[in-house]
């Protein structure tokens, strides 16, 4: 997978799950993993909502 911002290579951890956040090692941008068919892809991470929390 390549970063949507800077095109650097991003690799997901082996036990990665859809919904998990990954960060680009080069530019620090955050992405959410999602499932496309059998593969994990990245899309822009959700923006922190005002109602997020515990």
């Amino acid at each position, binding site marked *: 997978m390549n970063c949507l911002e800077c095109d650097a290579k991003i690799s997901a951890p082996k036990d990665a799950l*859809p*919904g998990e*956040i990954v960060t680009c090692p080069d530019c620090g941008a955050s992405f959410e993993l999602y499932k496309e068919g059998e593969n994990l892809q990245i899309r822009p991470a959700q923006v922190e*909502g005002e*109602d997020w929390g*515990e």
Partner: protein
Amino acid sequence: MNIPIVTMFYDMIRWEEKALVEAAKRKNIDLRLEDARERFFDVTGNDLPDLGDIILQRCVSFFRSIHLTAFLEEKGYKVVNGFHQSIVSGNKLYTSLALVKNGIPTPRTMLSFTSEASFKALDKMGYPAVLKPTMGSWGRLLAMLKDNESAESIFEDRESMYPLYQVYYLQERVKRPPRDIRSFVIGDRVVAAIYRVSNGHWKTNTALGAKAENCPITKELEDLSLRAARAIGEGIYGVDCMESPEGLQVHEVNSTIEFKNTVPATGVDIPGMIMDYLSDKAAR
């Protein structure tokens, strides 16, 4: 016994959700993951999906979480935490009312709906005081009101915001050390506690950089935490308290707890204990 089936609803996989997945594997629990964003829920129909024996609600979005829990519970599923518990713990006013009703020490608090009335409340309570949104987390929009002037400018900001922010929940500033205490209650047990030690900021949220350190579970803390949890209803909670000169005071009870910092600080297997609790509860 059959292997319990637990469905975990989530909208983001954080350290906590991964740890829960891992704990379920260790404990031989069939944990099924459901992204709340991907499903729709038929409110008027009665074609209900099979969601196993019990549901763990882990959505980080509070609005998502309470609406989904309302649906699930009303349709007959067992959900942790329950709807009532989520509503009460998700609102600082409702929590304060439940704590006071049950005689649990909590900081002095006032409620008002306009800045004029808030000034009257502050006259009575004195400065400094803390203004908090009744719903919200991670220290968002908490404001220290040092004096009349700072209160005035903060109220002015609030007046142009969403109506929720014109519900003024005003609390005396508690004279505590630069830390607070978060204890973890699972069912009828206090399983761990941490100090959240300030990194210089007056708010001691770990989301704002406070450090987690192991905190011994004294009799006082255990008793207070269990009473606070009971005041909300059975469930899984993070009970926040402060060391006031008069002893411990509970200021908040959290649902959908985070424990990323607590597990390494205390060595307590909180995700494993959550899974044990769910499988017990599924069998009940």
